[in-house]
């Protein structure tokens, strides 16, 4: 397979502009893009990782990617593949993504941090509130507005915020791919 350096940067740029339908950050910053390949005829294959398998936004993301990348000059066709290996992990969220999410009241566990499951409590160490910075926070509900988030409550500023769920297999997950 021949990698066409002429198309690849524009494909990456297009991907970086595609927002996640349910989070205030791009699918690249969320760590969804695992691999991008382009052949000499301009056929693009994009490998994406689903966050949570029950996420209803997956079809929408795949449609956005095929449409926006497919519309680029010199792109003949664009196909999206969802794979489970490596499993998506909160560790794949970029620094830029973390900053954007925090500004919208969504915290992200530190890389290599505690998993959300296999414990009576979810994330037993207190999370710093994204609004006021206090550590006097507690889990309000392990199931939030989407599959990938819990709802937390800050006793200090009396606001709720959301925390991205880190699953317990993620210590084995690889770091973000080259994509």
């Amino acid at each position: 397979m021949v990698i066409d350096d002429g198309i690849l940067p524009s494909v990456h740029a297009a991907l970086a502009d595609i927002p996640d339908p349910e989070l205030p950050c791009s699918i690249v910053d969320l760590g969804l893009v695992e691999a991008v390949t382009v052949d000499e005829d301009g056929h693009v294959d994009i490998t994406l990782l689903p966050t949570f398998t029950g996420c209803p936004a997956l079809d929408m993301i795949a449609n956005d990617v095929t449409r926006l990348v497919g519309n680029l000059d010199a792109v003949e066709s664009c196909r999206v593949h969802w794979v489970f290996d490596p499993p998506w992990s909160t560790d794949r969220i970029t620094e830029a993504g973390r900053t954007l999410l925090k500004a919208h009241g969504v915290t992200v566990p530190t890389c290599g941090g505690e998993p959300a499951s296999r414990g009576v409590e979810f994330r037993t160490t207190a999370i710093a509130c994204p609004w006021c910075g206090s550590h006097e926070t507690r889990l309000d509900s392990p199931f939030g507005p989407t599959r990938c988030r819990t709802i937390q409550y800050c006793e200090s500023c009396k606001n709720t915020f959301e925390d991205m769920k880190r699953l317990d297999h993620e210590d084995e997950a690889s770091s973000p791919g080259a994509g």
Partner: protein
Amino acid sequence: MTAMQDMMKDPDVNLVLSLADDLLMLGHVQGDWTGLGPILEEDIASSSMAQDDLSHALVLYEHLGNRFGLDPDVIAYERDVADYRCCDLVTMPDEFDWSVAFVRRWMVAHWADPVLDRLAMGGKDLEDRCRRLRAEQGVHLSYLDDWMRRLGAGPAEARERIQAALDRITPLAGMLMEIPGRDLDVDEDFCCGREELFNEWVTAMDAVLSGAGFIMDITLPARDVIGGRRGEHAEHFIQQHAEMNEVRCEDPGAAW
């Protein structure tokens, strides 16, 4: 022979379908609680877990679909009733008794964990899928175990109702252990030992129950039990299946 017939004749398919069909039907049945949960957070949790169960079933149907050249929706909806491998525990009416719905869900979540572990031995594609599903079901397990402990530490009504639900469901929970295929030895081999699977499942449940002060008296049923997993379904499965298929029958290919 059609692709569907090919699939149903493959002995490896039975255990995959057992869990996929359990999750499909439980997700459908548990969906009846959406809007009716005892408190808002519980309503969201229950609906979220039901949504997860349906998508986990889909991930397993997709695996089979890729292998046999079938649309996963066709596998989910268009089999003959006798080709569904779920056990009838998952469609048993809970009569909107939350304690019954809760205890059943807790038992099935505990069941899914070791079964996904076994299914992950079925090749690379299944391994990748089951690893992810096991991690996601792990969130359900944490949540449900936590609730079980809280209910055990709760007032008398909570303890009595949960114990009553355990007493009612435990005799039926053995249905989960039914060997799904027609060939008892082949299917038992694929489970990597039915007794081992049973012990793993029960030990994990007992660890939670003993801490919570509840009692469950469960024994491994005979190998030759014939029920839902071998296509002999109860009336309530047939009703739930018909309800689930209503829109698809009315308007094939409907999308929104």
